[in-house]
């Protein structure tokens, strides 16, 4: 079943470079379809680095996540951790 959550971005770089790479890698490693986008805008596939990066999400922005599949809950937990951890504390 589908789950959803909205998270405020903590890493200074926003959803770019390392946090973005870790974000996409996490989505790929889970059994769930995940989409991401602004709280009131269109969603894009979260397993695409290009799509995720072109959202242009910066520090302090809100990101809406929608997951569907057996790992929906755990993938959202993991993504929330990545999005709310300062970049220098992120463990790959």
């Amino acid at each position, binding site marked *: 079943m589908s789950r959803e959550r909205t998270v405020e971005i903590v890493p200074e770089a*926003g959803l770019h470079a390392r946090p973005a790479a870790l974000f996409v890698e996490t989505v790929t490693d889970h059994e769930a379809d995940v989409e991401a986008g602004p709280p009131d805008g269109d969603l894009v596939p979260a397993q695409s680095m*290009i799509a995720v990066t072109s959202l242009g999400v910066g520090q*302090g922005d809100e990101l809406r996540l929608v997951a569907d599949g057996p790992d929906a809950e755990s993938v959202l937990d993991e993504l929330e951790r990545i999005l709310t951890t300062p970049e220098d504390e992120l463990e790959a």
Partner: protein
Amino acid sequence: MASRTLTGTGATPRSGLGTVVWYDPGITLPDADESVDVDAERDRFADAVETARAELESERDATAERVGEEEAAIFDAHIQFLEDPTIADAVETSIEEGRPATRAVDDAFGSHIEQFEGMEGRMAERADDLRDVRDRLLRLLTGGERVNLADLPEGSVVLAERLTPSDTAQLDPDTVAGFATVTGGRTSHAAIFARSLALPAVVGLGEGLNDIADGAEVIVDGDAGELLVDPDDAEREAARADEGAAVVEEVVETADGRGMEVAANVGRPEELEPAAGRGADGVGLYRTEFLFLDRQSPPEEDEQYEAVKDALDTFPDGRVVVRTLDVGGDKQIPYLDLPEEENPFLGERGIRRSLDPDSELFHTQLRALLRAAADGAGELNVMFPLVATVEELEASIEAVEDAAADLNDRGVDYERPSLGVMVETPSAVFMADEFAERVDFLSIGTNDLTQYVMAADRESEHVGHLHDPTHPGVVRAIARTVEQAHENDAWVGMCGEMAGNPDVTELLIGLGLDELSMSAVTVPDVKVAVEATEYSSARERAEDALRVATRSELHETIQ
């Protein structure tokens, strides 16, 4: 005169002289109408992706080792771009339609590259990342030999249309004299890499660069942002002299034993490690504005605490001088709602804002600083920017006491850091004795001090020449500040650009400064200059310099 000079943007304030080596990945795409074996092309693409991934992983590890984790992170991003399903799907479709894998890859990346190119700032740099990944795949698909940037002859100056992060990461600063590119800006990856490695570099030189042939002699002048082709003897001599000294790890003293702390100015956390690597004894100016930029609301106390603690942990045996938030003037932060003023440099900036209307931000910052002082390894010093009156200073000291009281009530560990005043206004020069009586140190910010003492904007094409700290008026202001500080048992440093100019190191030693803080790149040069100086003769020269009437006489005195 050089036969030719091209102008671009300097990435590193340093010059290098060498022989041009053009770097050209040299990818030629086969004709589009070539007939293809769909299965074979599909396999070729899959193999190329696999090899590219292995290369990226090994380059990431090598970069983490040689440059730093921060810089290595870009390769993780490249791996994700490489494996993006949007690209894989587009390539697959294209191959099925009968195109060779090279064309398919070129087309699949092309539209996304264009999309990012049309965006601003950070987003536009993603176009570089995608190009980098595309070119890597095309090189593997066309069997092109990779030009080995890691194994260039000593004294090479690399010229390129552009250099990708993986290109720059291979350059060895001990053998490469510098690089210059057609495209790119100060914040491009290549420019940032160049600064971390103190490699002379000029970017954004434009199409004219393509006219310079392999084997030409050039000077990359990162200070002026120029590339000089076929330089004459005098220019060569000047560039050689600027090739830079070796890193000196130890704290240095003059030949006759007077110590001088040589520290770095730091504006972002990722500059801390490279500064330590350049032999900086500590940080003489940590600008905290970076914590407040590129976001929609101010950072919380904990985030600020972590950032300052990181700086203190990078210099466990050194001093870190943190300047409290200094906005206004030309530094804008949208959510702070800075007023539009006729003359912002004479308006609400620095401590003036921190006391009101940003007092809440100021208190949060001070609490973070006091906590970091207790937990960080190095010694924290805090200074207030643009102080003009004793009332402002006393209110700032009171704010520190309030922060201490708050933390005490919360039962949190804290420590009172040493406090100081940044001397930037003429008033601060005249009031230096009163200030020094109330704090532990003064730090002279020569960029603003020169601007205010000379009443000259350095960006002005008409009066920019007046913005020079070697005008006797400014030198006398510095001398007076040092004298008043020492009479009141405060130490005194300098954190403007003047501090990083080895040509005036002897003068500054003679004037009695205790600390010089500069861009990390020039730390080794200034350390060498300190060791070559005799304090006793520097003292005499400084006294002479204080007696002259004009800038040209002053230059003669200190030569």
